[in-house]
């Protein structure tokens, strides 16, 4: 099933297509606006930019409980195989956990994070919400529960397979790769993906687009 796709084209023939792989779960909502601003900046610099819904997220008709990281990796590989011309994958945070199966010309990652850390935060949110509701739960009790049944974590119903994969997932080696963090020697901006309420950062979006464009040119994509 084809998922909803946001595509922003440049004025002429695109020199390349940048596939944006957003952070996972709630972090995707917090960063979406800034990522789309970066897509606009990329198109202004001559690239096409694509942001595809992952199965089970946003406009997808697939129930989230039916997906796992493997399926997301396959879905991204399929998106890339349908793109004409060279594709650069730009992944953010947990997006870096699912970007390696796709056949891209180059990879760019911002602030990649391990799956265990994402899972720990999701589980903690559940423990904290349970506590407010007067229910006793712990990271251990949730881990046990997740072995046999789906778990509702911060609004996401995740299957045992998804939880097991997340807990063990690390960003995989890809080539060529530019991996950057936030800060003076990377992208200047704020970690919007942590923000309790969604924000936006136009300067950061411009910096992201400029860095991706400059890096892809050094990879011979022009």
């Amino acid at each position, binding site marked *: 099933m084809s998922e909803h796709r946001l595509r922003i084209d440049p004025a002429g023939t695109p020199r390349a297509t940048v596939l944006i792989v957003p952070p996972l779960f709630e972090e995707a909502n917090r960063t979406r606006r800034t990522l789309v601003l970066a897509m606009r900046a990329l198109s202004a610099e001559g690239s096409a930019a694509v942001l595809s819904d992952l199965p089970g997220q946003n406009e997808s008709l697939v129930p989230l409980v039916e997906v796992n990281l493997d399926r997301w990796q396959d879905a991204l590989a399929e998106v890339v195989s349908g793109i004409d011309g060279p594709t650069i994958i730009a992944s953010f945070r947990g997006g870096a956990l699912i970007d390696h199966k796709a056949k891209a010309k180059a990879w760019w990652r911002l602030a990649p994070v391990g799956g265990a850390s994402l899972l720990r935060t*999701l*589980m*903690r949110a559940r423990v*904290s919400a349970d506590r407010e509701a007067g229910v006793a739960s712990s990271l*251990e009790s949730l881990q046990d529960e997740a072995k046999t049944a789906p778990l509702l974590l911060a609004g996401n119903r995740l299957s045992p397979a998804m939880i097991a994969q997340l807990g063990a997932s690390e960003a995989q080696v890809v080539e060529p790769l530019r991996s950057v963090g936030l*800060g003076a020697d990377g992208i200047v901006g704020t970690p919007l993906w942590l923000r*309790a309420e969604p924000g936006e950062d136009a300067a950061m979006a411009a910096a992201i687009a400029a860095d991706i464009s400059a890096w892809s040119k050094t990879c011979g994509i022009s």
Partner: protein
Amino acid sequence: MGSGIEGICPFRVEERKLTDNSSVDATLRALLADVLGLGEDRAAALTEDSGLFGELPEFDSMAVATVLTEMEDRLGILIDDDEIDGEIFETYGNLLAFSLRKVTD
């Protein structure tokens, strides 16, 4: 985004302690600014008595979870479930005291 912990070499033990305390304080303020979107001014204006959970509307259960994971990453500590009670997030002073205790553990 640095950890806020600078690699300086102090002359005396007391001075080093002070540096550690103030760098934990700076790290914690930066972290709350990042998660709660406080902005530098509001983060700098937090005092020991400033209320957090229940006081700041942005501070919901997801924000608590995010703060805990970021504290682990940025302060290099591990936080167990049973160490967390409501009091830690009551005020900035409580959260700072908890962090300093964990860092020196």
